[in-house]
């Protein structure tokens, strides 16, 4: 007899479970996709430098230092919003920021940096976007945090803000420097 009552109560139980799920879902962002590259070495690549196409930028930059790789482009509105934050952050000289200029126009990018300030230690120019695919990039801006051994440890999707830098990025950098 008890089982019989349980069967009739089953729909309510299912409903409660679903409601809990939806409540949780409201506070999740379905559009953010975590990168499977976290915990892996940076992908090998070789790209011309933005300012000097004859020279190249490779994965070897990410050795023996904690560093950031910021994927950006002049056509990307959110990157423009983020730019000032990056410039301010670079002035603190905490870690070097490398840029991956994604599917951009070289001259536009150079003059943009000249005008708005250049937070980057170096910039790789990815005209076709193929290297970005190897990094699992799906929308600029994205920022990778890379440790001393060249391992990707974290990825920020969307523009960095002073708040994110202070409360999330800096503690992470600090921990990586201790390692």
């Amino acid at each position, binding site marked *: 007899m008890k089982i019989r009552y349980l069967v*009739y109560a089953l*729909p309510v139980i299912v*409903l409660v479970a679903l409601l809990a*799920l*939806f*409540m949780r*879902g*409201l*506070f999740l962002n379905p559009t953010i996709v975590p990168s499977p590259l976290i915990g892996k070495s940076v992908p090998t690549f070789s790209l011309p430098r933005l300012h000097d196409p004859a020279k190249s930028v490779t994965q070897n930059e990410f050795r023996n230092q904690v560093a950031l790789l910021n994927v950006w482009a002049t056509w990307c509105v959110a990157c423009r919003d983020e730019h000032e934050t990056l410039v301010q952050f670079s002035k603190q000289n905490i870690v070097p920021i490398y840029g991956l200029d994604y599917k951009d126009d070289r001259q536009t990018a150079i003059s943009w940096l000249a005008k708005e300030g250049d937070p980057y230690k170096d910039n790789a120019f990815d005209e076709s976007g193929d290297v970005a695919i190897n990094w699992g990039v799906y929308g600029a801006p994205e920022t990778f945090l890379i440790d001393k051994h060249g391992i990707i440890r974290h990825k920020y999707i969307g523009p960095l803000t002073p708040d994110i830098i202070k409360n999330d990025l800096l503690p992470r950098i600090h921990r990586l420097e201790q390692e």
Partner: protein
Amino acid sequence: MIPELGHLALILALCLAVAQTGFGLVGPWRRQLIWMSVVRPAAVAQAGFVIFAFAALAYAFLTNDFSVQYVAQNSNTALPWPYRITAVWGAHEGSLLLWVTVLGIWTIAVARFSRHLPIELVSRVLGVLGLVSIGFLLFMLFTSDPFTRLLPPAEQGRDLNPILQDPAMALHPPMLYTGYVGFSVAFAFAVAALLGGRMDAAWARWSRPWTLVAWLFLTFGITLGSWWSYYELGWGGWWFWDPVENASFMPWLVGTALVHSLAVTEKRGAFKSWTALLAIAAFSLSLLGTFLVRSGVLISVHAFATDPKRGIFILGMIAAFVGASLTLYAWRSPTLPAGGGFKPFSRESLLLFNNIFLVVAAGAVLLGTLYPLVMDALNLGKLSVGPPYFKSVFIPIMLPFLILIGIGPYVRWKRGDAASTWRTTRVAAIAALLIAIVSIAIAGAAASVLLAVGIVLGSWAVLTALLEPWQRLRARRQGRHATLPRAVMGMSLAHLGAGLLVLGITVTSLLGVEEDRVMAPGSSATVAGYQFRFDGVHTVQGPNYQAEQGVFQVTHNGDAFATMRPEKRKFSTTVTTEAAIDPGLFRDLYVAMGNPLDNNAWSVRLQYKPMVRFIWLGGVFMMLGGILAASDRRYRRVAPQVALDTGAVQPVEPGTDTVMENRE
């Protein structure tokens, strides 16, 4: 002034809805006849105010009143006037108003056509509907007021999303909402019956036509949406298994199960609690759809701009309505009498299997739709569940279901006779096999097992659906007594539609051809025997857009066949692809232009889509079947009041012949 009156009307409607609910639910409990007699006028007045509010918003759109924020965001002086009306439901706030308006219309219909029902039942039904009105009116007034003013007023409106400027799209939401909201009537009947503790054949008979009407509108709405996405989105797809489409498909599947389960409850007094559960579930899934679309918890191509506050509000409504009704269900159902017995091979038993397959299919769609959310909520990583998943789980569940479609109508209630069913239907079985063999031979290299199975089952459903009307008409011509009631015709037509749908899906998915080409003016391409010559592009001026129109001359076997003109339309902010379609009952040709390339060349997608029209034709036949069945004269007959008091199964009424009772 008018927008303020609209807003005021919504507030008054809310007050009246509170009265409608209060008197409707408390009246029968306290046995206060006077309270109950207030319910009907309160409900009608409530609905009247909501309809007035809707008219006020429509008026603001027609007069380009850009001092109303919602109008400024979704209309424009250049927008042709019919689209200014349909723009009323072009975004979140207005579509919510449409929802409440549709609920008002259903409420009026229930109040009007329920005069022969016991007053307690009518009170409770209208009370429950009033509760739903309260929920949605509060939601609108607190989170999504369509009448918010914009100060200073905008000079010009932002325009309606161009892809919504289309006749089918204009009609799609009202039809869909009529379906969704219609299930609230079935829900209200079920809750009223549970509250009253009387679930009997009479209850099933009363809620059946309402459920059928809701179901047929939902069927039509989904069909329209599918057709629209086929010609408007530009890539020739007709179903994407997108979360929002799934949100409309789940209530449809459960609603279809409900339509069948109600038949058993009405005829045999069985499956009462199951039927009540389905009625609650169909409406709950409609609410769930609202939540999924308006809360942003899932990724969808067709989502509203989202706001977590709205999500929480809808979630609260689901918790209240569904939670309360399911609790009531858990409390009242165990005491319901079981109803009549039946043999394993009987109409009841087959309908039970029908329900199982439909509900499991809906469960599979729900699981696939929510699984990414579950994974994310449990921190197990992100994944996508898309069309390949749904196809691989949905098809195996639907195959046995399609076999049952053909058998069910030829099995007697209580105890069926397998031999006699086989004698009746074997013609159809053999013919379906022959059709499949011929089709395979024609398809040649493109043939596959799935094609064969799809054609056999589709033809089987079509032929068995035709069998019964044909037999009855033949019997009548031979002078024997046989009737063809609308309920039977409706069922046959709906099953015929299901068969056509299966044939259309099978053939167009497996034998369709799709080719992307780069075409320069003067060049030609051949797809499935049709030769397309590209004659270049010229500019065409539309009312609120500018289009680049390509011209394609199509020849077939050397004869001029058609001139097709696909367009790329540039609206103020967006560009849309307007595909050119040469329609035919047995095949569509579909041309869409991609991007301009060097030397006046364009990237072009050419498609040959055999029998794609059968998909929507199937939907239309199902809808027509629903209309016929809902208009059966049985539902217009006054039910004897005694049935309610004894809780007994409705006796067979005089003048109803046994064939009809048996074969309905």
